[in-house]
């Protein structure tokens, strides 16, 4: 058994970590948070040049043709550094959807652009409060054109194309849509984490091409969500680890009552609990990575476990990192709130924790029945 990343994968991590330490300091996320830019375009270009945007895209389409374990390694580093780029939208969602459901023409058109970073893709799925089920969408196809509204769409302002879920008669289908076309209007929306932009996109007769088997969007989305859940979980894990490190470092540095605050059991045990949560999340994430990379039938269980565990760990570490920092942790100047914001943003990125709890129990029952 080898339940660890390979030497090459760990080397990729080191490379990514060095690259991001240099190109993606907290100031990068702050620039987007402050509204100066809508994403870090230079970083995006740098990631493309490193080949990171096309890591799972076959070489024939301009990618590196590596596997999902490599992508997991990168996702963790993105999370650590709060990378303010559309990596998750473009790589975990749009690329995955094209790879699994795209026609040869669609792949040839978009995959090379995704790999080079010259196109950004996203998934436009949620429409309002609550989970999406068949029949609940307002976005629909009428005479071959799309009408409706999606909210929130991650990176919806800056994406070049979106995969859109829409009602087609009684069924849901996926459509691929050039967002610069006619009948599309988009506007930024404010969120709890402005360092990753989201948009409202309205369709009023936009032209769209089907992506994959029609009428099968529920299953397609569910499959891509399982895959993306593992990748988001690695991002969350990276964030959790970084928040824990920041808190640990501050506890060693800050003194009160004549001693390091990290010598008080109240602080030590808060940090120990953060470590426990992050360790459980890491182990669940590794299981998810294994299931994702081997296309194992255990993926639904593994993905939901990684997702839930990493959501809990990042939320815990980010909120208690503020607590360890005391008043300073609640200033704009300290970076704690960047992780607190991001932890709450990512917790909802693929639907709520409650939704994933349900998915986990359903999957566990199915695996027991099997």
């Amino acid at each position, binding site marked *: 058994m080898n339940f660890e990343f390979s030497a090459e994968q760990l080397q990729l991590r080191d490379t990514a970590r060095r690259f991001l330490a240099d190109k993606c300091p907290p100031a990068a996320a702050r620039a987007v948070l402050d509204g100066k830019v809508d994403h870090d375009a230079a970083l995006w270009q740098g990631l493309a040049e490193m080949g990171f945007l096309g890591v799972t895209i076959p070489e024939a389409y301009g990618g590196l043709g590596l596997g999902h374990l490599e992508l997991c390694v990168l996702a963790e580093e993105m999370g650590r550094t709060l990378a303010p780029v559309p990596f998750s939208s473009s790589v975990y969602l749009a690329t995955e959807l094209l790879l699994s459901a795209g026609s040869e023409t669609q792949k040839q058109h978009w995959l090379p652009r995704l790999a080079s970073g010259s196109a950004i893709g996203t998934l436009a799925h*949620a429409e309002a*409060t*609550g989970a999406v089920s068949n029949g609940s969408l307002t976005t629909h196809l009428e005479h071959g054109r799309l009408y409706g509204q999606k909210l*929130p769409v991650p990176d919806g302002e800056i994406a070049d194309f979106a995969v859109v879920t829409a009602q087609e008669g009684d069924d849901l289908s996926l459509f691929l849509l050039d967002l610069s076309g006619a009948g599309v209007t988009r506007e930024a929306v404010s969120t709890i984490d402005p360092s990753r932009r989201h948009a409202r996109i309205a369709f009023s007769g936009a032209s769209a091409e089907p992506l994959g088997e029609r009428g099968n969007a529920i299953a397609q989305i569910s499959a891509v969500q399982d895959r993306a859940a593992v990748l988001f979980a690695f991002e969350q894990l990276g964030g959790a680890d970084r928040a824990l490190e920041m808190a640990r470092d501050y506890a060693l540095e800050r003194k*009160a009552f*004549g001693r390091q605050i990290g010598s008080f059991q109240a602080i030590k045990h808060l940090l120990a609990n953060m470590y426990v949560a992050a360790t459980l999340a890491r182990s669940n994430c590794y299981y998810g990575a294994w299931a994702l990379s081997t296309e194992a039938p255990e993926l639904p269980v593994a993905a939901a476990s990684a997702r839930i565990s990493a959501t809990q760990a990042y939320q815990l570490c980010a909120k208690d990192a503020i607590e360890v920092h005391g008043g300073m942790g609640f200033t*704009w100047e300290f970076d704690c709130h960047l992780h607190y914001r991001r932890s709450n943003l990512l*917790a909802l990125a693929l639907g709520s924790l*409650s939704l994933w709890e349900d998915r986990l129990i359903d999957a566990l029952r199915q695996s027991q029945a099997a």
Partner: protein
Amino acid sequence: MNFDDTPEQSAFRARVRTWLDANAPKHLEPELRSAIGTGISGLKSVDPIEAAKAWQARKASAGYACPSWPREFGGGGHSAIERVIWQQEEGIFAQLSGIFSLGHGMCGPTLMAWANEEQKQRFIPPMVTGEEIWCQLFSEPCAGSDLAGLRTRAELAPDGSGDWIINGQKIWTSAAHVADHGLLIARSDPAVAKHKGLTMFFLDMKSPGVEVRPIRQANGHNGFNEVYFTDVRIPDAQRLGAPGQGWEVSLTTLMNERMTIGATIVTGFDQIFSLVCAMEGENGPLVEDRAVRSKLASWAVRDSGLKYTSMRAISAIARGEIPGPENSIGKLVAASLHQEIATFALDLQGEAGILTNPDLSAAKGQFQAMIMRSPAMRIEGGTDEILRNIIAERVLGLPGDIRVDKNVPFNQIEG
């Protein structure tokens, strides 16, 4: 056991209600309500400072500003239980007066205990009427939970005038940007143990050398300030207590912690209960979802537990007693509750839970504001960890932490 007013209390409550009916700025109520639990007044239609001063002045004219302070200083001369009744009735409008809370809760009582007659006559009445705003200059960047670790220096002026020269930095000073006066604690003797070398003063915030800089908080609000002191001169007459007696004076102040008894503790429970009663899930109303109910129930009993703990304190006040230590649990319980509830409320909203725009977000974005505010609740006025220590030591009688800085001259403590 009953919730009934005595005839006197009932008459007082009726008078208060009548007065409030005629005088409270009811048009501001929706704005004030929308901001519950978010740490701001919520006022956008009017200037919050103007509104605060106007409401304070109106209350003062009727004896309801600082209701239990002596009449000679402009207070209402009411009993402690009448003050509680006032707070219950004032309700949401108390949020208008947040800017005065440290002055009324801490600076005023300290002046009453330690200032001379002339100073009291000069400074307390305008504090009551809201004409003058006070701030409290205690915390420092390196002295938060460990307040006695403060470093701001007070040195006798070399000119022999007896004046003191202040140098250093304070932090977390609410209202400093609008304050007229401040209560300041500083280190006058670094060669003695940390609690021994402190002295308390009050000063004019317009004094030369005082510089106030707002602190931007993690949620984007500016609720607090840093205050820098560069050779600020304070006359010796504005010293409160003897040199070196500052810690003792500060304890008088801290004992007078803002009386939240009677005021509503915001846990977020009412808000989440309304949300789940109004929201539909995939399988019907969310309040029918058993997972939601189970969480709601455990929050409900913590919320009601706090509410009735507060009633027990009020009851003690009504009997002329001092409330017991059980009231110390309020903020500790409310802060975590607030954070848990806000986090769950976002989760209930699914992917749309990230939206902060009141027009797009369920419940007008109040839970999003709450989640961004909640980490501060667990820190301000004593962190969770300090509060548990206080409960363990003062209520349960457990030993204090081992102190490595005890009896060590301040200038020989590491760090």
